[in-house]
């Protein structure tokens, strides 16, 4: 029933021109410079970028969590409701039941002094589910994230579980309240690669089965491409490109997306890495032009003068002055 309800809506998450800045003695310092991003019901979107690009700030803004003293403009709608207008009890219920957040380090997010069972049933108990029913559901949720001996795990403490198992507990706890949207902020970056495979497979299955939307934040483009429907690439507080994940390597048009792919070493053949010169810049350092202009091999005069806006070209949205010609300039053969 809830799945059917969700399918009726167009967008589960809709962020329009979100700007966040912090007060500094020399004036406001922008950290998000106008983020526009939407996720349809049941869709999985990967948000990819280097550190400081604003990925986590964007995800936290969906929960209406802002840094202290931040100035915010733009809109954030979840299931048609304006998140920025929420406060008090309505905000608490929204955070508790409408969206679920999965963090990079489950160990620092789960109370080490309470049992796994208490952690998972907390949200359900808050919704008024009787203790016995909540426990039964918690056990079946733990089984659905491939934990053996779930009844026994319920009585264990977080310190007794490995990072990979604890991240599954985190996923189970988020599924418990059946949110329409899951925000996963680098959920596997601290895990071993074989554990990562298991955890992203579990997370992907869980979202698909329940028709939940997923915002998956990562710095790994290939990982994002493998488990999401669309990819959004961020840098310096802006979304530079959005495109279908399956077409990442063949249809990308932004030079930054191409540069990110080229700067990763290949697993099977050694070639000299085409490293991006310089370091990623922050939103407040980006000036008036394109945020990638100073590091871009294709930059022309206009790139450092005016900022390109995100516009639709073919299957993608691209914020690049030369987006139309990039198809002929990027060496797609080197990307695969």
């Amino acid at each position, binding site marked *: 029933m809830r799945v059917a309800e969700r399918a009726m809506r167009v967008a589960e998450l809709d962020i329009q021109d979100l700007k966040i800045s912090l007060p500094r003695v020399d004036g406001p310092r922008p950290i998000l410079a106008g983020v526009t991003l939407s996720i349809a019901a049941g869709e999985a979107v990967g948000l990819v970028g*280097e*550190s400081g690009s604003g990925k986590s700030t964007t995800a936290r803004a969906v929960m209406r969590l802002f840094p202290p003293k931040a100035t915010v403009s733009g809109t954030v709608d979840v299931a048609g409701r304006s998140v920025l207008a929420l406060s008090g009890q309505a905000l608490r219920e929204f955070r508790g039941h409408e969206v679920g957040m999965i963090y990079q380090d489950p160990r620092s997010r789960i109370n080490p002094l309470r049992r796994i069972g208490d952690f998972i049933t907390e949200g359900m108990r808050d919704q008024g589910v009787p203790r016995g029913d909540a426990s039964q559901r918690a056990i079946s949720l733990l089984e659905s994230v*491939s*934990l*053996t001996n779930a009844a026994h795990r319920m009585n264990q403490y977080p310190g007794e579980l490995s990072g*990979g*198992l604890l991240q599954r507990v985190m996923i189970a706890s988020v599924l418990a309240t059946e949110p329409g949207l899951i925000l996963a902020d680098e959920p596997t970056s601290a895990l*071993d*690669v*074989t*554990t*990562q*495979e*298991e955890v*992203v*497979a*579990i997370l*992907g*299955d869980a979202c698909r089965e329940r028709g939940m939307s997923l915002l998956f934040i990562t*710095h*790994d483009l*290939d*990982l994002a*491409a*493998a*488990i999401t429907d669309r990819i959004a690439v961020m840098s310096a507080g802006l979304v530079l490109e959005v495109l279908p994940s399956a077409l990442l*390597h063949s249809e990308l048009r932004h030079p930054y997306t191409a*540069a*990110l792919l*080229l*700067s*990763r*070493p*290949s*697993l*099977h*053949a*050694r070639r*000299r*890495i*085409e*490293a*991006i*010169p310089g*370091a*990623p810049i922050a939103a407040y350092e980006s000036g008036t032009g394109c945020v990638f202009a100073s*590091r871009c091999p294709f930059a022309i005069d206009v790139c450092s003068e005016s900022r390109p806006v995100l516009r639709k070209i073919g299957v993608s949205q691209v914020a690049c002055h030369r987006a139309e010609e990039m198809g002929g300039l990027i060496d797609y053969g080197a990307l*695969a």
Partner: protein
Amino acid sequence: MRAGPEADGRAESVPSPAKVDAIVDVNSVSRVYRLRDAGRRNTSFTAVDDVSFSVSRGGSLGIVGESGSGKTTLARMIVGLEHPTTGSIVVDGVRVDGRARTRAARRARGRTVQMVYQDPYSSLDPRQTVGDSLDEVLRFCFKLSSGARRARTSELLEQVGLSQIHLALRPNVLSGGQQQRVAIARALACTPSLLVLDEAVSALDVSVQGQVLNLLADMRSELDVSYVFISHDLAVVQQISDEIIVMHNGKVVERGRTEQVLNKPNDEYTKRLIAAVPTVGWKPHRHGVA
């Protein structure tokens, strides 16, 4: 100090007979930790289990494995921060599997092998400027005049792609990539014959990681230095190592030429490790319950 362009490409070529001798020789090394479990019974944990390998002079060995596989314990034993329970380790002709008893012996070790850690922010002294931190190593290792140390400091900075303006800066104003370059310069200051890099590029952003990997490849062909490169990231290891060993639960499960192991793995665990790396067209699979 700097070799000319004719030395380029040495990394790919076959080692000449003069370089065949080993810079590191690890022979049947095990490291067992004694623990007391919850019931206060004495138990033991074998972190490294009967590991043997050697690295030829000028070579680069990658050690890959997941957390708990024993790779960092092995690294710490090679630099002499820990000692094997059984077995022997010889670095540049000197045994390092016991304590360095004298100041001179410790100094000699420092000049032979140096380590670069994952997090440069915690391995550099936050109160020391870049210049002072390099100068300290030079004073420790060599008898040089202050003028000669200054010249050497500039040379080191240039080698790692930094410049004079960084001399007076402290780590907190440097980016992560710049900090790691300083850590590499500091490790190279006393011209060690071996560099042990423990997840040295893992904390860096993708674009900066590429720069540091290129830098490490260049340094090896320019300077007379060998690498033991430890990482969980197979693609990064492939970029920097001629040979690799794959570790699992303290044991070596597979070894060989890097491209051989990564393209035609024999061991089941190595296969699983490679299959779990996201690449073009990769899809995650659930392997079962845990």
